[in-house]
């Protein structure tokens, strides 16, 4: 797993993309932000945390609930 991670990081850092600040018109759209719908994400995490054995991934592991 660590190998995959390091490979991915290395790939990114070699600069496979070079998008200039003024070319960020699309990336700057709110729906392209990773936190486009923060409450939706929090609600999903909470539901799946209480119903499944896995949690987190997108961010920290969620939890803080007696539901699991």
């Amino acid at each position, binding site marked *: 797993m660590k190998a995959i991670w390091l490979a991915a990081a290395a790939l990114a850092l070699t600069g496979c993309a070079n998008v200039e*600040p*003024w070319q960020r018109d699309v990336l700057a759209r709110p729906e392209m932000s990773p936190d486009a719908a923060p409450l939706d994400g929090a609600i999903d995490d909470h539901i799946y945390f209480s119903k499944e054995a896995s949690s987190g991934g997108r961010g920290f592991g969620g939890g803080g609930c007696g539901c699991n």
Partner: protein
Amino acid sequence: MKDPVPSVSAAQRLSLSRSPGHWTGRFTAMACPCEILIEAAQETLAARILETAAECAWRIEKKFSRYRRESVVQRINESAGQPIEVDDETANLLDFAATLTRLSERRFDITTGVLRKAWTFDGSDRVPSQDQLDALLKCVGWHKVLWRRPTLVLQPGMQIDFGGIGKEYAVDEAARLVEDLAPGLSCLINFGGDVAVRNPRRDGAPWRVGVEAADNAGAAVRLVHLQRGALATSGDSRRFVLREGRRYSHILDARTGWPVSDAPRSVTVAADTCTQAGTLTTLATLHGAKAEAFLKKSGAQYWLH
């Protein structure tokens, strides 16, 4: 302000740094911190823009500061009744000041400077005597001046200063020169809180300008998104007189020689040019408690505190 800035050392007084998505250039002019924000550009271009804006600010400061030995204003103030011939730029500023006096029904006047001998705006309650003011008021009033472009004759004892005009004019001049240098590039010119932007940014994002709160100097309380145009703020956060519970601003009403009372602590106006915005803040403040009514009537976008 008091030590002259030799242009040879100018480069040392400039700082240019990379910020997220833009360049930030800084220098000091007209006794206040100045800042130039330049959207993504080559470093050499950003440096030239910063130099151009700073040279412009320093030139105007040198030429029009009433504290400067060699300034035009000092030459005029020391003329003691003798006719003085002025250059085009000075003449344009004098014409503009005369218009403001007319538009403000003589509340605004560039000859009120002598009254500062009596008023010290240090937050105390020291107030000059009416006799003292009356004596000084003899030397106040644009109508006492003989102005026939390009010749100006002040009465002996009279003085002028371009406070309330000069800095805003410098911002617009710098914006013009930067536009000539890099047409279409979005730059934010900020001379001590007076701001101008000629072009919107290519990434569509606005420049974010913090508007200083009057009673909390240094901390931004309002954030204004500026795509293009200008903002000017007049405030008395540090300069005021408190007397019998009333707060008098440092802006003097030329008709009475007294500071304006009950004016908003700070007035920010948005307009097409910084000169227009600055004029509106000054005129509004001169209306004291009726500042907001004045601004409403002007139709300009404003923020009061």
